[in-house]
């Protein structure tokens, strides 16, 4: 016969109260023989015990012990009262998922509840022990949880709000049925937290932190619990209320869209957009039960899950049809303004690979047909053309002081033409093709050549001031600050040269750099992409790399900025907007083909072309499409804004002038 200890007399000392005071074989209240500890936390301990009143059978009970260690007598009394009231509520409840309460008493410095012992595992343990919770089981549990919550919320005169729905409070018993444990009683014992604590409840609804507790808070917590089960991402380790940043479909491809929609609706940030009650949620879950893939039919309506203002990944009308079938582009087409008509088009004799520039009444565009074309900007009528001896792949720039159009050609020559008539003002010969667009700054022209040199010429007469030997073709457009000229080369090297032509710093990427650098002059940060797939942020003064961001394709497209965002395209087909200070993605926009052209920002819109033939206009803040326009060929050039027109060249040989709509 095992040894039996009686509880010691009144436990007075405070320090003992913090310890687990009941040991195996202790007998509590002359009736409950402690078998072991089931669990515990800061507020108390739960023991497994045998009820000795039943001699013949082995009746197990759970003994819940609450520490009432508040030093203040009044506070202590009120805590016990709250506990008692809650226990009384429990005693009036009768539901298969709610454990029965047998007894309640105060002994020495503790309060005890004797309740039904549930043989099973809680969901937290199940999460740890399994690789994946079967979806059909999960739906059953969710339905049962809705059912018991519905029962609690229907209590009169006042609904009982569980307040603490989370995986560790849900037991799955030996019959596979859901049992709710821990009725939030402990919560009322939590007084003002004094010390900084790490970790949040993770499952609580936002309004709960303001003290607004309603049955809908339980809906949110149930949603959070299901989200945790489906994604296996513990919300206590994530920023609070960030469920929509961890889409269920990403983490769990087997989750049916209908179930995802139910969970997302339960997790809606605004309680008014959540399920009003658990009965509704239960009905939606039950609809999933029989033919989860096909017959899902619910009343989510237009209130797409939207927990904090970011758009959800769910398309509401797409939910009913399971994993098919409605292409999202269908919706984009509806919202896109398909009525954009070009004001004029101008056809050259070969592909347009570069960007136009406009000055006064004229627009200038180079073509691979070797010509520089000047047209009237408002009508597209030809004014003059100038033939070089090679294709023109670099964009013209305008020197307003000297009234010249400046550009390089694949005939190795750099040209300055009088903008009015196309007559040569001066030329400059390099030793290889020129594909780098020039930069005009400080009355000088800076450009690179395939001969491996970066040139600085006087803008007035084309006299060479200096050249800097990089030893590798330079096809990117240099950026000129008050101190430095920054350019990238085919070897992957990015170099900064002082205004007097001396090397200041270099940074080596792993593949060729065709993307042109962009320097945020306020912050002194240089952004530049490389064919090694990375976008880099470098200190413009020192070349130190502050961050890099990896895309899934070479970056040929040159970055630009909008407010605090760096915007650029990648050959992976996406246009990216990153936070300039942290290098974190703010949004991205997917096109059908690689993006090699550079975006521009005008007011609050981003314009860019893709090799999928489209010119896109996006909201710069959100990356949402405003409109798009289809050209007859791939677009590799950057758009140019001339007054109320947007000029864009395409590989279909044409220059388009589109009315500027944003």
């Amino acid at each position, binding site marked *: 016969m095992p040894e039996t200890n009686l509880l010691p007399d009144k436990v007075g000392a405070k320090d003992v109260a913090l310890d687990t005071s009941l040991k195996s074989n202790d007998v509590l209240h002359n009736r409950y023989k402690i078998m072991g500890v089931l669990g515990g936390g800061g507020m108390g301990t739960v023991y497994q015990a045998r009820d000795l009143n039943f001699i013949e059978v082995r009746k197990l009970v759970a003994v819940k012990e609450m520490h009432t260690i508040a030093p203040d007598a009044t506070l202590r009394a009120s805590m016990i009262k709250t506990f008692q009231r809650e226990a009384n509520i429990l005693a009036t409840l009768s539901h298969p998922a709610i454990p029965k309460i047998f007894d309640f008493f105060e002994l020495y410095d503790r309060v005890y509840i004797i309740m039904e012992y549930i043989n099973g595992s809680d969901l937290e343990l199940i999460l740890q022990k399994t690789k994946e919770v079967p979806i059909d089981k999960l739906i059953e549990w969710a339905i049962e949880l809705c059912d018991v919550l519905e029962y609690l919320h229907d209590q009169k005169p006042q609904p009982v709000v569980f307040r603490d729905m989370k995986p560790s409070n849900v037991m799955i018993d030996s019959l596979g049925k859901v049992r709710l444990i821990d009725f939030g009683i402990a919560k009322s014992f939590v007084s*003002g*937290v004094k*010390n*900084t*604590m*790490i*970790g*949040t409840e993770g499952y609580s609804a*936002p*309004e709960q*932190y*303001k003290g607004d507790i309603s049955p809908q808070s339980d809906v949110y917590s149930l949603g959070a619990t299901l989200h945790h089960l489906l994604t296996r991402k513990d919300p206590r*380790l*994530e*920023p*609070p*209320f960030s469920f929509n940043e961890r889409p269920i479909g990403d983490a769990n491809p087997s989750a049916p869209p209908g179930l995802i929609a139910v969970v997302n609706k339960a997790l809606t*940030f605004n309680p008014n957009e959540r399920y009003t009650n658990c009965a509704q949620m239960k009905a939606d879950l039950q609809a999933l039960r029989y033919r989860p893939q096909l017959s899902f039919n619910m009343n989510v309506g237009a209130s797409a899950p939207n927990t*904090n203002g970011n758009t959800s990944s769910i398309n509401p009308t797409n939910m009913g049809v399971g994993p098919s079938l409605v292409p999202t582009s269908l919706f984009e087409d509806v919202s896109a303004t398909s009525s954009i008509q070009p004001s004029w088009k101008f056809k050259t004799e070969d592909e347009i690979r570069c960007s136009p520039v406009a000055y006064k009444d004229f627009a200038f565009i180079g073509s691979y047909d070797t010509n520089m074309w000047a047209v009237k900007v408002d009508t597209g009528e030809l004014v003059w053309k100038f033939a070089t001896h090679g294709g023109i792949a670099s964009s013209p720039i305008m020197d307003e002081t000297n009234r010249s159009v400046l550009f390089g050609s694949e005939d190795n020559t750099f040209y300055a033409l009088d903008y009015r008539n196309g007559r040569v003002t001066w030329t400059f010969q390099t030793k290889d093709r020129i594909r780098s667009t020039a930069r005009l700054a*400080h*009355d*000088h022209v800076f450009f690179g050549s395939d001969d491996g040199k970066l040139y*600085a010429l006087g803008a007035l007469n084309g006299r060479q*001031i200096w050249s800097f030997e990089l030893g590798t073709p330079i096809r990117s457009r240099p950026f000129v600050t*008050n*101190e430095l000229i920054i350019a990238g080369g085919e070897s992957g090297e990015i170099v900064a040269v*002082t*205004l*007097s032509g*001396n090397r200041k710093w270099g*940074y*080596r990427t792993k593949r060729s750099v065709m993307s042109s650098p962009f320097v945020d002059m*306020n*912050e*002194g*940060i240089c952004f530049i992409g490389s064919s090694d797939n990375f976008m*880099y*942020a470098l*200190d413009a*003064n*020192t070349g*130190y*790399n*502050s*961050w*890099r961001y990896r895309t899934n394709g070479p970056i040929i497209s040159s970055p630009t900025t909008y407010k605090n965002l760096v915007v650029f395209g990648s050959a992976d087909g996406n246009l990216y907007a990153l*936070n300039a*200070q*942290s*290098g974190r993605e703010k949004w991205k926009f997917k096109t059908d083909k690689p993006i090699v052209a550079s975006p521009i920002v005008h007011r609050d819109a981003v314009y860019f072309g893709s090799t999928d033939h489209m010119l896109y206009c996006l909201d710069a803040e959100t990356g949402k499409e405003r409109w798009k326009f289809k050209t007859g060929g791939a677009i590799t050039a950057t758009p140019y804004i001339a007054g109320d027109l947007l000029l864009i060249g395409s590989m279909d040989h044409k220059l388009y002038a589109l009315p500027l709509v944003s």
Partner: protein
Amino acid sequence: MNIIRRLFNNPTNEELKPTAEPLIAPETLPNAMPPPLVSLATSTGEIALNTDTLTTDITNDRADDPLDAPVATAIVTKPLDPDSVSSLNLEGATRELVPDQLYGHLLHNHLTFGVASHVGAVRSNNQDAAFTLFSAGRSADEIPDFGLFIVADGMGGHHDGEKASALVARVIAAQVTKSIFMPIIQGDNISQNPISELLINAVEKANADLNVKVPEGGTTLSSCLVIGGMAYVAHVGDSRIYLAQRDTIEQITRDHSLVQRLIELDQLTPEEARDHPQHNVLYRALGQNESVEVDTLTRRLPPRSRLLICSDGLWNLVEDHELLDVIRQFNNPQEACNKLIAMANMRGGVDNITVVLLYMPG
């Protein structure tokens, strides 16, 4: 046409000029910088004055605004003796300002900083940690100014809090020294890895060490690495970094706290957050988990801007605009640090208070 002139300039002269945009008309800039008026202090916090260069001929009509005026201050690398600080601060007393005229308004081109940490008026131990490291040189090698400034606010019983913050500050300092500082002073190109990734590696190493050595402890971390005029920030938790420029102050880090999240989601006002029962619940800290997500950001520190790193013991009791007032008021960063600690203590000093303050040269 300063720029054009420089296009043809002898580059060796070029290097001696300040790299930032000249804020004084170029004509008034000497060809070479004068020797520093106030040279780098020794570890005893001494101030060495170079009296030969004392001049009063450069006047500035905005001298009443320290963020606008060129600032000449001493580098005080040693925190004040904690005991003397505490008696000093609790009375709200600070030392008499040295009149500006004594220093003159000469430019000097290194940052200066102050650091102070205080247990506060309520707690019995200081769980905060501060760490500073600064190097400045002037030579043909052109090694940029380099500084590492860390504030960590530890938490956990049984002295785990102070162990955690101390360990994390130390490990990060060692890592950053090894991966960034040593290559710079050895004249190697620092590794091709971005500085933000090197900082994240350092924080992850600190987190891993913390989990092993002080498993029950946790800590916040706000660190700022300065190379030249660029600040590279790594941040976890609810200590804060503020950037003050002229008459604005901007919190550049984001608190990883429950209430901040509720504020971002328009569920709480900042006023409600202050009194919220869970206002000091963090959702991210070092020592919480095997992995830690680190916020990194890069900011240019404009000339004469000032950067404040502090634990919540300060910002919970002193409003942002008051921080700015003090930062603008004092030309000596150490005195500003002492004043801020005194203010927090005057208002109850309910938590440990730690302040690191950087003044960028103008």
